[in-house]
């Protein structure tokens, strides 16, 4: 098979940019990048012939000759104000077109033991703190986009929490793409290393400020130390012609807890892969997700929870609302390894189809190799409950309003779980606006 335009462009980027990528000169990183590049060369852009990509065709992406993101363009703080407001005055790190923009970022006074920096500067300053963790969770050997990201990553967030360190305020990481012609591709890499007993709340926020075609290829790795508590919010509000392909890979030590919220609201084609490894006893993860899609949007979530040790628990709730000719894909996998006794896992995927031409493929999976477990999954696809609609109408609420109320209630099961008050309100009003046909307040 010959490589398509996107594939050859990426391989050329690597050859052309290798010397300028952050961390160049570090032998371990050079080896890692070369290895990843070779994997990508071998894997190529996934096709629908692969089971994991069966319902998500990347034909147009594969035909786009992307240019490498050329770093920050001037954007004014006012342009991102509406997005930063919802998180408040918390520490903020901003990346524009794949490069860190210190002028827009403000970290301020940090509690002891908390280190926030860009990955590139951390690699330049203290590579020894990154080496033991980078690409240890994310799989750059079998996943094409992770391989591509590992080979070409330009920058991203590095968050390190010393044992017991607590970052009480949410950390807002904003990725802005200015998307203009020609199409550009940004490869972002985030690394979170949470020491034993540490706590943090991280908001990973992707926005597009123009209507051009671009690709965001992001990979986040989280290493959650013993008894750490991490909350991770991913907001995907890319512009309407954007491709957004992201991965979250986490390894959890004993007693750690990760709560992930994913809100997928924009983009033309988005794919989010979550892989959580519960690698210690009493580790717990909660995955909440909401995806809204309409017109020709395509939204694809793949989650894998690997219960590798006994007494681990997981809860997962993903909800989707699809309108227009939007296509949704959900693939949730719960894997319980032999001897991971007393596992308790619950997964639920619910979808609402609002139009005749919307479609959903849901694939909840259980793979269980231990016996003393309690695992359940449920998937439901349907329309609004006729009885509930009738009830509201008997109370004098007209059909349209009743529909919108019920649909909003459907979504608020997930938005209601967001831990930051202004953000929750903002997302709820986004959903309301979206349901009434608007672009959503941005």
């Amino acid at each position, binding site marked *: 098979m010959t490589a398509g335009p996107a594939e050859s462009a990426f391989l050329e980027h690597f050859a052309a940019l290798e010397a300028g990528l952050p961390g160049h000169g570090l032998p371990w990183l050079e080896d890692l990048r070369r290895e990843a590049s070779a994997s990508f060369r071998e894997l190529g852009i996934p096709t629908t012939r692969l*089971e994991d990509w069966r319902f998500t065709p990347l034909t147009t992406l594969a035909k786009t000759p992307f240019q490498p993101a050329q770093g920050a363009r001037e954007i004014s703080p006012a342009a991102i104000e509406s997005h930063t407001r919802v998180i408040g005055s918390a520490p903020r790190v901003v990346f524009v077109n794949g490069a860190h923009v210190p002028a827009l970022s403000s970290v301020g006074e940090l509690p002891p033991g908390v280190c926030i920096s860009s990955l590139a500067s951390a690699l330049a300053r203290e590579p020894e703190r990154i080496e033991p963790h980078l690409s240890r969770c994310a799989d750059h050997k079998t996943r094409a986009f992770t391989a591509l990201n590992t080979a070409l990553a330009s920058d991203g967030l590095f968050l390190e929490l010393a044992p017991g360190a607590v970052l009480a305020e949410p950390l807002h990481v904003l990725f802005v793409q200015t998307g203009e012609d020609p199409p550009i591709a940004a490869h972002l890499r985030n690394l979170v290393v949470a020491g034993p007993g540490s706590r943090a709340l991280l908001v990973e926020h992707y926005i597009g400020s123009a209507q051009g075609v671009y690709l965001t290829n992001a990979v986040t790795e989280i290493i959650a130390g013993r008894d750490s508590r991490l909350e991770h919010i991913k907001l995907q509000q890319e512009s309407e012609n954007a491709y957004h392909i992201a991965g979250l890979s986490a390894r959890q030590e004993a007693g750690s807890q990760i709560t992930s919220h994913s809100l997928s609201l924009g983009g033309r084609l988005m794919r989010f892969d979550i892989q959580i490894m519960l690698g210690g006893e009493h580790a717990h993860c909660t995955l909440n997700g909401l995806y809204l899609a309409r017109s020709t949007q395509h939204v694809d979530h793949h989650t894998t929870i690997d219960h590798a040790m006994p007494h681990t628990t997981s809860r997962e709730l993903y909800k989707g609302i699809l309108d227009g000719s939007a296509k949704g894909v959900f693939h949730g996998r719960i894997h319980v390894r*032999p*001897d991971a*006794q007393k596992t308790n896992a619950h997964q639920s995927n619910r*979808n609402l*189809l*609002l*139009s*005749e*031409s*919307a*479609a*959903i*493929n*849901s*694939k*909840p*999976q*259980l*793979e*269980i*190799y*231990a*016996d*003393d*477990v*309690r*695992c*359940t*999954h*449920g*998937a*439901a*696809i*349907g*329309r609004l409950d006729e009885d509930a609609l009738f009830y509201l109408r008997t109370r004098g609420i007209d059909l349209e309003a009743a529909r919108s109320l019920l649909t909003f209630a459907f979504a608020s099961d997930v938005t209601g779980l967001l831990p930051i008050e202004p953000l929750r309100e903002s997302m709820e009003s986004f959903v309301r606006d979206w349901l009434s046909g608007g672009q959503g307040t941005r």
Partner: protein
Amino acid sequence: MSSASQDIESLANRDYAYGFVTDIEQDSLPPGLSEEVIRSIAAKKNEPDWLLAWRLKAYRGWTKMTDVPRWSKVHYPPIDFQAISYFSAPKQKEELKSLDEVDPELLRTFDKLGIPLEEQKTLTGVAVDAIFDSVSVATTCKEKLSELGIIFCSFSEAVQKHPDLVQHYLGSVVPAGDNFYAALNSAVFTDGSFVYVPKGVRCPMELSTYFRINAANTGQFERTLIIADAGAYVSYLEGCTAPMRDENQLHAAVVELITLDDAEIKYSTVQNWYPGNKEGKGGIYNFVTKRGKCKGDRSKISWTQVETGSAITWKYPSCILQGDYSVGEFYSVAVTNNWQQADTGTKMIHLGKNTRSTIISKGISAGHGEQSYRGLVQIRPRATNARNYTQCDSLLIGDRCGAHTFPYIEVKNASSIVEHEATTSKISDDQLFYCQQRGIDTEDAISMLVNGFCKQVFRELPMEFAVEASKLLSVSLEGSIG
């Protein structure tokens, strides 16, 4: 725990009760597969030209399928399709007129299997089309059925006597090139059952057939075709046991069901083929394609299966719900023990408006058994108001077994409702404790709980089978818990 491990051991050591080989001269073709072999099968069976042409087309398609399907979760060494003999028939000198003329050795085999033909005829009112290896040897209650215009005969007989019906429906649900094993079956099938129920007729008895695999190295390639014409109803039972063999035997059957307007077919299976010994050696490879098409409006197809045997089971009895208001059902209990593997489930393809489907799947995994439920519920754009309910539950017994669930749900119509639920757990300690507290010993308590777990499926089985199935289940899982 010690008593439990003892129990597991006693279970594992239990011999397969139906393991014996009947010594009858076989009229077999030498191993190997080629166009010549297919031509000689067709010639031996005196088949019309169109059927030979159909077989050859299937064979040519099969040779182009370069690889066996690998997407399922079952693992087995590659099969040498050239080492299998594709035809074996008990030698028959002349036409049999009554049971007395049947080889006594053969009759004894059936006795051991617990299906005395003569008794069945008079006592149970079940018409049995017993198939011994590949050729049907005796058929009962035929007269009664033929009064009603119901055709129930072996496939070869149907080809000779009702070629129009066979030609019209053969391959209309499972096309010759459907999948690897279906293509192989289409090329080399030797016999099977054929049922046609005419318009408005309700078949007064359960039709039943027993399949056995006897000659060593003879893959059995059965072909079953059941047609229920408008307003007709038929209930069909299929039950299996096979003798003990060391080498794996391949069984690649195809079952096609067709219902026209307002018709209903109920297809029940109890499959108890040799599962291999406790080291996982031997046992039957059961690679079956079963599919029904609800062609007419308001028609219904219901699959019920109890799968306790075979080393590997790979089957997905499916329904194509083409007619408006048609109904598809799938009820399944699958048990895997020792080294058995099962990858089973169903496909419900909703094409027509207001179509409904129900899937109830109960999996029980013990020892080193591996079990997967793999299902597809597909709602096509035209299937307005389609409805599906799926429930798959798995019970795990022992810590070396696996239970997996791979449902695919594809919905392209906004007015439909699809629900899927699955749970995996071990037998509840609380329930066990409750039973024991009431003086019921562990063994009986487990049997009770497992039977309760499967009740939703068992109550769909015809009476004769329900008793057998529930017995089979308790025997299969005897003492396999701690």
